């Protein structure tokens, strides 16, 4: 296997152990996160290998991967900027923040990532932070009450190699690192 080998295979085995042996297929979502944490997005190789691990077809794995927005099937920026534009955020100015995210990162509307490969911008359908709208996540870490100016600062910081401190919880310095946490294979940080 190209993706799930060595320590990654050991992580995959720990994921498989969470679910009853007769229901291995339940592991497909964490395995997709794990693959994404290795390669930066879910590759064809990863889809096939996950199918082999679970005893299902590549098509069945792809059916799941393509259903959920947090799995990315095409090359993705080092950092993923998610901007909620749903009603609670829209009412507090999210559309201007979404525009600023594109301008500052160089991601053209409709494009997957910026030319330098640093950024992907994603329009979100409610991040569940309506009390601090407009809500933004960078690599799934929250930033509250974001203005267009603040968005430009955040992007400039990332370009300079800084990891912005999130409103809550630890910072993940890349989409890959956040995907690894989402796979649930990281040591749990103290509360």
């Amino acid at each position, binding site marked *: 296997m190209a993706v799930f080998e060595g320590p990654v295979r050991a992580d995959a085995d720990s994921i498989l152990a*969470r*679910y*009853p042996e*007769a*229901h291995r*297929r*339940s*592991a*497909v*979502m*964490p395995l*997709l*996160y794990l693959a994404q944490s290795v390669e930066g997005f879910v590759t064809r190789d990863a889809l096939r290998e996950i199918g082999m691990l*679970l005893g*299902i077809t590549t098509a069945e794995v792809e*059916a*799941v991967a393509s*259903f*959920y*927005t*947090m*799995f990315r099937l095409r090359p993705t920026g080092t950092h993923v900027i*998610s901007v909620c*534009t*749903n*009603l*609670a955020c*829209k*009412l*507090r100015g999210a559309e201007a923040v979404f525009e600023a995210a594109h301008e500052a990162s160089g991601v053209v509307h409709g494009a997957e990532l910026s030319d330098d490969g640093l950024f992907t911008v994603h329009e*979100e*359908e*409610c*991040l*569940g*932070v*309506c*009390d*601090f*709208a407009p809500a933004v*996540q960078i690599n*799934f*870490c*929250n930033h509250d009450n974001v203005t267009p100016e603040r968005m430009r600062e955040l992007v400039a910081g990332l370009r300079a190699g800084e990891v912005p401190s*999130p409103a*809550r*919880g*630890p910072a*993940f310095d890349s989409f890959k690192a*956040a995907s690894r*946490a*989402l796979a*649930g294979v990281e040591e*749990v*940080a*103290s*509360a």
Partner: protein
Amino acid sequence: MSLRFEPRLTRDWDDPSVIGLEGYIAKGGYRGLAKALAMSDADIVEVVKSSGLRGRGGAGFPAGMKWGFVPRDTGKPTYVVVNFDESEPGTCNNRELVERDPHRLLEGMAIAALAIGCETAYIYVRGEYLWQSLVLERAIADAYAAGHLGPDVQGSGKRIDAVLHRGAGAYICGEETALLNSLEGLRGQPRLRPPFPAVEGLFASPTVINNVETLMNVPDILVRGADWFRELGTEKSPGTKMVTVSGKVERPGNFEVPLGTPFRVVLDELAGGVLGGRALKAWTPGGSSTPMLTEGHLEVGLDYESLAEAGSMLGTAAIMVMDDTDCVVDCATRMVRFYAHESCGKCTPCREGSWWATRVLERLEDGQGEAADLPIMHDLGTNLLFRAFCALADGTASVINSSLQHFPDEYEAHVRLGRCPLKVEHLEEVPA
């Protein structure tokens, strides 16, 4: 009316130590579980039934009755599934409840597990709640280490395991049968019912699926009793409810209120009134899928019955406030676009109807609508309601039908003027 009551779900929010196990224990944590371990499973179900606790995730189904539906003689394992997929636009109280008090959720979950004889509980967390899922992972590890979860819960010989499962960005997974499919490693599409999950749920076994807030009410019900629980709220909607207030208010946030509290009290006393002192135009009582109401509904009580009577629903009690500068057609367009994006594609009325409604709303808002578009909207609203497997399409219909019902003049103005009457840049281009 002034709001005076003893907080329940939020009572320890001023103490950051309760996020840890020691702090939670110091506040009396895991005593409800100890009490439940000394009771029969039927008695646990009975006390929750007597409390009148209803599901806080939207449907409002009585929790104890749900637990009582689980058959115990099938020879299959039973499962508790915690629905922490909180994705209804405008809703974020489960997030803050878990951030501030994660062990209360684990305790409620463990009591539910005892009530139905379950040895493995699954917690389905929406993927975007990465920090909150890490908080829960820590809490689970600590609860295991202290023996409140695991093979021998509080020395009782009973086993309760907890498995955390992350979603990956799909609103529909908050629908309980879509959630089960997602947890089984399938696309998150809803299942036909019957069979209901209580009979055939996760892994085709009897399953109880409860919302986070529902379960977090349970430990105190065990400790303090059903009568205590009923001291707040109304006869048919007992207890308190977390409400999220967002949009055009001075102080957006999550607030706990006794069920039945009038909307005006929440808006003015807790959320500080409409932003900048402007006029209230429209509000959703329970997230974007519940029919919007107007300033004519300020005195409506926030409970299941009163909101149904007003033509809407309590839903997740997510109040999004729009003021007199907000265009209802523009807001409806954004909400319907959400439903078009999140439709799983299984049912034709939802898949095609939400897409079509988005196109019609966009052209109305852009000033390119025609008089014939209004009957099309009515037609779409009618044909989306109760025509699909799950309630996602009903949410789309709620937005369309309620905005047309309460703001017909605003729709007509878009057609008549050939522009949005509330957009400033349009006013500059086209003299009124």
